């Protein structure tokens, strides 16, 4: 079986791999588009408004700067996508894995065994959250990290229910051992 994430066991079945709702990505793209608008504003307004910007030397300087600016914009877009793509959560039949890529050089992977779960809460708030059905799933655990958060995931109630259903399947002995280990 091909492993989807590092440390995946051979008999481990993945039930869910979830990322933030696409609307969160769209919001970041919208911010990025503001910077694109600066370029469009230059071509659409500044060039028409100021005659000296239409002279050949000014055009060469402007094109060189615009190309460099566009390179940084494309790099910014790629960065936004990478950070969206590398932040995900995995729910398997054994554990929950939370992979956080807070920046390019900050990578954190946290996992908890299902037996360590104490409480699961799904939260949907705000107009946009209710409209697009996304929110946060809080998982209270008995481990070192006491609270897991799945931020801005689609259909958080379904994910919370999945986690609870998988928790119910964990043998009682394992749950007791996890509580004692606390």
């Amino acid at each position, binding site marked *: 079986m091909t492993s*989807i*994430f590092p440390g995946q066991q051979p008999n481990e079945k993945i039930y869910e791999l979830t990322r933030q709702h696409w609307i969160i990505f769209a919001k970041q793209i919208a911010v990025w588009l503001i910077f694109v608008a600066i370029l469009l504003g230059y071509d659409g307004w500044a060039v028409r408004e100021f005659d000296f910007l239409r002279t050949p*030397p000014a055009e*060469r*300087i402007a*094109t*060189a700067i615009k*190309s*460099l600016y*566009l*390179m*940084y914009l*494309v*790099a910014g877009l*790629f*960065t936004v*996508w*990478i950070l969206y*793509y*590398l932040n995900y959560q995995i729910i398997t039949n054994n554990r929950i894995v939370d*992979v956080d*890529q807070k920046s*390019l*050089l900050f*990578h954190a992977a946290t996992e908890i065994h299902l037996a360590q779960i104490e409480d699961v809460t799904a939260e949907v708030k705000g107009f946009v959250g209710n409209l697009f059905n996304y929110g946060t799933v809080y998982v209270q655990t008995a481990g070192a990290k006491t609270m897991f958060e799945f931020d801005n995931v689609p259909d958080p109630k379904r994910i919370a229910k999945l986690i609870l259903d998988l928790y119910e399947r964990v043998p009682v002995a394992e749950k007791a051992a996890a509580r004692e280990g606390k």
Partner: protein
Amino acid sequence: MIKLVAQIIFYGLVCILAAYSVLMVYVLLRYGQSKTLTLVLSGLYALVMVTLFSAAVANFVRISFPEFEL
């Protein structure tokens, strides 16, 4: 002198961007789930960047800078 300063700034910015791009591709290769997707997107990204760089350099070398003697 002005030309030298402009060149340092221009190529310096390009070098910083190149280093950052290499870092992005490395992070994607290391932590991404699909190597194929990483390579395809990195290839497309490189293509776009090279095109933009060519346009930037082509216009930059044609800029005439005033000469000042120190």
